[in-house]
């Protein structure tokens, strides 16, 4: 039984069947990649996991509890963090503040009225956030206005914001989409480092299958809203069905 169990999920947008009978099981402490051509329904699937969309039918269980009908912040409080396709950070805040906010969310829950005591007295939260930044080699940028970071650093910061929450499951939606070669390699290295250093379950959604081959323990190939195959990376490359799905896209 995996930490995440998706069973019989269907999602329609008008006449379009975006997801058709998706079954997926992600085992704890593994990296599971979901790949597929553009429009395969990868983002739709992810949105069903984080509370942005509700599937028409089927169930999504996380850690034995259903996530369906819960709001995004509730699902995050259950232990699922996500990074977005384009990095979403608090651009008006400093880098350190960006990492402190998820620390508060982890410690104090979805809402707490602490309006009088100054932030500077929250020593533990600050230390935790700073340690996280040091871990990702960003400590020297802690006082920077986060909107002025480079694209790669924004991605790194967003990862820091998720990791500092020590999530049970980390979801990544095309973490290298639109990145230059160098930034892509950086991100892959970062993900590998995270996988080695931490006990973490990751679910990575990718369009470019080469990104995930060296990273994933298991790969699910999604095409036209339905899983084609699920297997270890070395078996995926040679699979004719997968070739067809990708060739069909380029042809």
């Amino acid at each position, binding site marked *: 039984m995996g930490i995440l169990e998706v069973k019989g999920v269907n999602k329609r947008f008008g006449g379009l069947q975006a997801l058709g009978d998706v079954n997926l099981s992600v085992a704890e402490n593994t990296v599971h990649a979901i790949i597929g051509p553009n429009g395969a329904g990868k983002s739709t699937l992810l949105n069903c996991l984080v509370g942005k969309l509700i599937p028409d039918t089927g169930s999504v269980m996380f850690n034995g509890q259903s996530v369906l009908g819960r709001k995004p912040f509730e699902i995050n409080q259950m232990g699922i963090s996500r990074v977005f396709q384009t990095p979403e950070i608090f651009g008006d805040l400093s880098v350190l*503040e960006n990492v402190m906010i998820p620390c*508060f969310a982890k410690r104090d829950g979805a809402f707490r009225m602490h309006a009088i005591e100054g932030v500077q007295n929250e020593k533990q939260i600050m230390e935790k956030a700073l340690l996280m930044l040091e871990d990702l080699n960003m400590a020297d940028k802690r006082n920077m206005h986060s909107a002025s970071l480079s694209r790669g650093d924004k991605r790194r910061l967003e990862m820091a914001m998720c990791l500092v929450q020590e999530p049970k499951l980390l979801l990544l939606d095309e973490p290298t989409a639109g990145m230059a070669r160098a930034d892509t390699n950086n991100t892959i290295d970062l993900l590998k480092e995270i996988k080695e250093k931490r006990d973490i379950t990751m679910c990575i959604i990718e369009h470019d299958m080469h990104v995930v081959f060296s990273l994933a323990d298991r790969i699910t190939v999604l095409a036209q809203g339905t899983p084609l195959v699920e297997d270890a990376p070395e078996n995926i490359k040679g699979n004719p069905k997968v070739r067809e799905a990708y060739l069909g896209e380029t042809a």
Partner: protein
Amino acid sequence: MFGLDKKDTTLLLVVALLTLLAPFILNPFPTDSGLAQFNAGYPDLMQRFVIFGIFAIGFNILFGLTGYLSFGHAAFLGVGSYSAVWMFKLLSMNIIPAIVLSVVIAGLFALVIGYVSLRRSGIYFSILTLAFAQMSFALAYSVLTPITNGETGLQLTLEDPRILGTSATADGSIPVTNLFGLEMRSATDLVIGPWSFTFSAGYYVCAIVMLVAFYLAIRIFRSPFGMMLRAIKSNQNRLNYTGLNSRPYTLAAFVISGMYAGLAGGLMASMDPLAGAERMQWTASGEVVLMTILGGAGTLIGPVLGAGMIKYFENIFSKINDNVLHGWFAWMPDGIEDLTVAIIHPFIGKGWHLTLGILFMLVVIFLPGGLVEGGQRIMRLFSRKKATKDDKSKAKQPAE
């Protein structure tokens, strides 16, 4: 000091000094000089400076931090005024219970209006608050006449029951508002040479309340709660996926700013015990938006500056008339004098709104950060000059 860092303590002390010395600072011109009309150091106007300062400080906690633009905050100010006047009528002329009730009732109103309005964001939120405020205005103006006394406004009368006090004084007049016996309208004049300075009890009560309100606002800005509010403005989507529920945060900010507005309304009634529906009109709500943006939304001192500036313009520019202008330009040849006066005429007296509008447009276009940004630019100009000097002296050292 006071749990603030050095920079904030300095700011608080500077503001405290300026407000406490305001009767001097705002009266720079001798009483008999031609420029005396630019003096703003009289109690009535100074009270308005600090009361609207409080209103704007509170508004800024909502708008400046979360970015939610309310167009209905005057409703809370009006509710505060009505509550205070009722307290004077029924309980006592002491301003403390009146102000406490103003804050509490305004807070409850804000809770209800905020709860509904915050279901939407952006322009829809603004429209909802505006609709609520207009409904409140209509209620105060006509529907709830027994409570608000309709268009005449709620006033004290000689028949008020006043449980802890008398309905009328010994000489048959209405008692005056006080703070444990200190009458709000009492004042002493200090004459130094040609200058005359007025120290009013009412002003100092308002000033101290404003300093407390300002201090609390600094604490809120620097707290984790304040950080969450800024995060909401910056990226609400990210906040939700970070496990935080933005709704109670925005509602808390809305209620706090509503209570600040109620406090301002209560103080207003404490200085002059009457309350009218016009205080709740949408133009009054718009005014506090202008104050905050003019001064610098999201900054600590900006709203206070904006409030002071608008109230100064309202009172000083509106008093200048053609006769005054002719006095100023008497040195010009007659024809040119008349022409000059005719050109300036639309911008003074009742036309001061025109001046304010132009000023507002200039600030928004050239200084989007408001007066505070203007101040910062000037400071930077000076410090850059200093910095280049320092660089030069440093550069010399290695050669030695």
